C-alpha cells in the first residue's frame, strides 16, 4: 500500500472572499464554510473563528483538533463512513495543510451531564510553548445543537463538522505544487515476508478507545462507527495516517491531529527496511473488566504472533488504570510467546511514598514487562502560569480570560498518549 502525502505549508490564516492557498496563506470564505456546515440539521449557529500564532488569544472547551487533509484524484475518500461516503484510505495521494489545524470547541448547556471539555490552547506566551497547537494556524469550529438534538447526536455532528471543514480547507491546496512529498509504502505481508526476512518484524498495538466510560454511540472512530464492541484487528499503517481512525470524542491526551501524524507509526516507518520490518498495526479498545481485557489481550497477542509473525511490538494505552492493565497483559502475552515488547505510558496517578528513582506503573508482578518509557504524568508538576488573554474563542463565562497557574495537562496536546511529547516523569 503506497500513500503520497503532499504537504502544503501554511503560515497564516485569514478570512477572504474566496477560499484559497497562496504563498503559505490560507484564505477562507467564512460564509461558504458556515453554509456547508449548517447543512447538517443537527447543528445551528455555526461559527468560525481564526487564531494565528502570536495573538493573545485563548481557545477553550476543545474536544478535538484535526489537520486539514483531502484526498486527491481518484485515490479514495476522506474519512469513509464518517462523511457519509464509501471508499478507502491509505493509497494514492492526500493533500495536507501542514501548519494549519481545525479546532473543535464544544457548546454545552448547564444541564448536560458527562465530562465537560476543558482543554485549552494559548496562541502566545508560556501556554503556547508547552503544547503543539499554539504554533499552528487554527480554524476554530463552534456550533450549537439545533432543536431537539440530543447531546450525543450533537457531539457526533460537531466532530463531523470538523472533519468536513478539514476536507473543505485542504481541497484549496489540491492544485498546488506541494512543499514536500512524504511517501509511505509498505507492501502486503506476503510480499515483504519473502523480501526482508533478515530484519525483525515489528507491530504496533494501538489502543484507541477506553471503555472506562460509555462510548459515544455512532462516534465515527473507525470507518464511520465506534469501536466499543470490537476485538483487536489489524490495519495497514497508512490507513491510520490517512483517515481510517478519528480520535474518540473528547479523548484524554489524544486527538485526531495526533493520529493523522501518529508519532509511533512515523517512527516505525522511519526504521522500516533499515532496522526493522513494520508489519502492521493492531488496534484495540480497552475493556473495563478482567474477563474482557483478558480476551482482548489474548486476541491481540495472537494476531501479533500468528497473523503478523511479529518479533517485536510497541504498545501504548489510551486512558487510565484499566487500559494500562490491558496494555500490560497484552505485552505479557506477547513476551510469553517470544515477542519482545516495549511500552510507552502516561502515568495517570503516582504513589508518592515510593522511594524508587523511577516512576511506576499501576500493575505489578509482571516481570516479563521490563521495558517501559515514561511519557510524564498529568498529576506531576510543574504548573504553567498563563498570561491574561485579550480574546477568548469558545463558549466563555468570562473567567477564562484571566491568567492563572494551570496544570500542563489542561493545554491541549501538551501531553500525549501516543508519544508526541518529550515529557518524562522523574521523582524528586
Amino acid at each position, binding site marked *: 500500500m503506497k500513500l503520497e502525502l503532499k504537504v502544503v505549508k501554511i503560515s497564516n490564516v485569514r478570512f477572504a472572499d474566496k477560499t484559497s492557498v497562496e504563498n503559505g496563506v490560507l484564505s477562507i470564505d467564512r460564509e461558504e464554510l458556515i453554509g456547508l456546515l449548517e447543512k447538517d440539521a443537527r447543528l445551528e449557529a455555526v461559527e468560525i473563528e481564526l487564531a494565528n500564532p502570536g495573538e493573545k488569544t485563548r481557545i477553550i472547551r476543545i474536544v478535538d483538533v484535526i489537520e486539514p487533509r483531502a484526498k486527491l484524484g481518484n485515490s479514495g475518500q476522506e474519512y469513509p463512513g464518517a462523511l457519509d461516503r464509501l471508499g478507502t484510505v491509505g493509497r494514492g495521494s492526500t493533500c495536507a495543510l501542514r501548519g494549519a489545524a481545525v479546532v473543535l470547541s464544544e457548546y454545552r448547556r448547564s444541564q448536560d451531564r458527562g465530562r465537560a471539555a476543558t482543554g485549552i490552547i494559548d496562541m502566545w506566551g508560556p501556554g503556547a510553548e508547552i503544547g503543539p497547537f499554539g504554533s499552528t494556524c487554527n480554524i476554530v469550529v463552534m456550533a450549537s445543537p439545533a432543536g431537539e438534538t440530543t447531546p450525543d447526536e450533537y457531539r457526533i455532528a460537531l466532530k463531523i463538522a470538523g472533519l468536513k471543514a478539514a476536507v473543505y480547507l485542504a481541497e484549496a491546496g489540491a492544485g498546488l505544487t506541494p512543499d514536500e512529498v512524504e511517501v509511505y509504502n509498505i507492501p502486503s505481508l506476503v510480499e515483504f515476508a519473502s523480501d526482508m526476512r533478515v530484519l*525483525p518484524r515489528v507491530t504496533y498495538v494501538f489502543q484507541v478507545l477506553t471503555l472506562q466510560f460509555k462510548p459515544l454511540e455512532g462516534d465515527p472512530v473507525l470507518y464511520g462507527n465506534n469501536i466499543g464492541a470490537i476485538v483487536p484487528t489489524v490495519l495497514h499503517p497508512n490507513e491510520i495516517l490517512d483517515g481510517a481512525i478519528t480520535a474518540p470524542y473528547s479523548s484524554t491526551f489524544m486527538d485526531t491531529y495526533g493520529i493523522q501524524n501518529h508519532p509511533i507509526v512515523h517512527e516505525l516507518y522511519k526504521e522500516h527496511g533499515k532496522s526493522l520490518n513494520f508489519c502492521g498495526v493492531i488496534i484495540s479498545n480497552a475493556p473495563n473488566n478482567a474477563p474482557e481485557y483478558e480476551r482482548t489481550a489474548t486476541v491481540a497477542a495472537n494476531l501479533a504472533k500468528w497473523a503478523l509473525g511479529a518479533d517485536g511490538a510497541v504498545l501504548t494505552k489510551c486512558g487510565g488504570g484499566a487500559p494500562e492493565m490491558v496494555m500490560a497483559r497484552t505485552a505479557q502475552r506477547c513476551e510469553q510467546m517470544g515477542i519482545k515488547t516495549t511500552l510507552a505510558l502516561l502515568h495517570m496517578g503516582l504513589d508518592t511514598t515510593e522511594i524508587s528513582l523511577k516512576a511506576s506503573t499501576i500493575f505489578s508482578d509482571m516481570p516479563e514487562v521490563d521495558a517501559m518509557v515514561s511519557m510524564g504524568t498529568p498529576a506531576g508538576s510543574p504548573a504553567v502560569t498563563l498570561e491574561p488573554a485579550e480574546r477568548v474563542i469558545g463558549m466563555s463565562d468570562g473567567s477564562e480570560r484571566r491568567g492563572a497557574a494551570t496544570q500542563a495537562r489542561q493545554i491541549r496536546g501538551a501531553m500525549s498518549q501516543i508519544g508526541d511529547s518529550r515529557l518524562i516523569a522523574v521523582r524528586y
Partner: protein
Amino acid sequence: MATGKVRVVHYLNQFFGGLGGEEKADIGPQVIEGVTGPGRAIQNALAERGEVIATAVCGDNYIGEKPEEAAAEIIELIRSYRPDVIIAGPAFEAGRFGVACGAVGKAAQEKLGIPAIAGMYRENPGVELYHKDIYIISTGNTVRVMNEAITGMVSLAMKLAAGERPGKPVEDGYFPRGTVVNELADRTGAERVVSMLLQKLGGESFETEVIQPQFYTISPAPKVEDLASAKVALVTDGGLVPAGNPDGLESSDATKYGKYSIEGIESLDPENYEVRHGGYDTVFIRKNPNRLVPVDIMRELEKKKVIGKLHQYYYATTGVATKIENAKWMGQEIARQLKEDGVSAVILTST
C-alpha cells in the same frame, strides 16, 4: 549564612557516639563538644568548608520510646551552638538509629529552620517514615561503606547550607521525597519506545524508565463462621455520597472518606445520593445507588436472618488515582472504627 565555615551539628546513637552498646540504649540525650566517632570522617570531608561544632548523642531505646519528645529535648541541647545544618548518622541498616536520625532531622528543620541530612540503607524503616521530610542519602548496609556514605551526606549538606537547590535524587544520591516532576527527555516518547525495542531485539542492554511497584501482601481475613449473627458493614471506593457531598469528597486522588448513616433506610433513594468519581461511568449508580452500596438487598437478608445485622453506617471514598499512602491510612482507620463498633464482616464494593 554568615561568611566563614558552615557550623555542623552531628547526631549519633549511643553505639557510634562511643557511650556503649545495647546496655546503654536507654541513655538520655547529651552533647559532646566537637567531633566523635564517625564525626571525624565528616570533619575530614568538610575540610576547610565547615566544622563539626558539637555531637548530640542519645540512646536508641530512649528516643525510640517517645521520638518526638526526645527529639525536642535534643534540639534544645544543640540550639545554643547555632548550627547551620544537622547531619544525622549514617545509620546504614540499624533500624532504631535510622528512625532516630529521621526524628531528630525533622525536628531540627521544624524548630531550628535548618536543613537536615541523614544516611540510611534503603530497607531501614527510617527511610519509609522520614524520606518525605528530610534528605536521606542512600547508603550501603554496613559501616564498610562509611566513607562513601559520608562523602555523599557532606556534599549534599554543603549544598543545602549554601541555599542551593539539590540536584536530582540520582545525582545527589538521596531517596526521592514524594514529588513527581515532568521533565523533558532528549527525544520524544515515540522515538524512545521504538529505539528501546530495537535495543531489546538486538540483544543489547536497555534501561527501562518505569518500574513496577512492590505492593504489600495482604492476607485475606478468615472466613465468617456464623453469618447469621454477624454485623455486616458496607464500604465502597465508588464515591457514593449523600446529595450535596457534605464532606467534599474528591472525584479523584481522594484524601478523605465519608461515613454516612443508613439507619432506618430500606433502600437508597437516588434523589438523596450523588457520585463523586472520575474513573467510571456513573450513570447506572446515579439511577440506582443500591447497585454500588447494596442496602436494599442487605435489608432483605437482614429480615430473612441470613445476616445478623446491617451496620448503621456505610463508608465511601473515591478509588481513582488515589495515592497508596492515603488509601492505606483510610483503610486502617475505617477498619479500626468498624472493629470498635463490633462489625464482624464487610462487603467492599469497588468500581
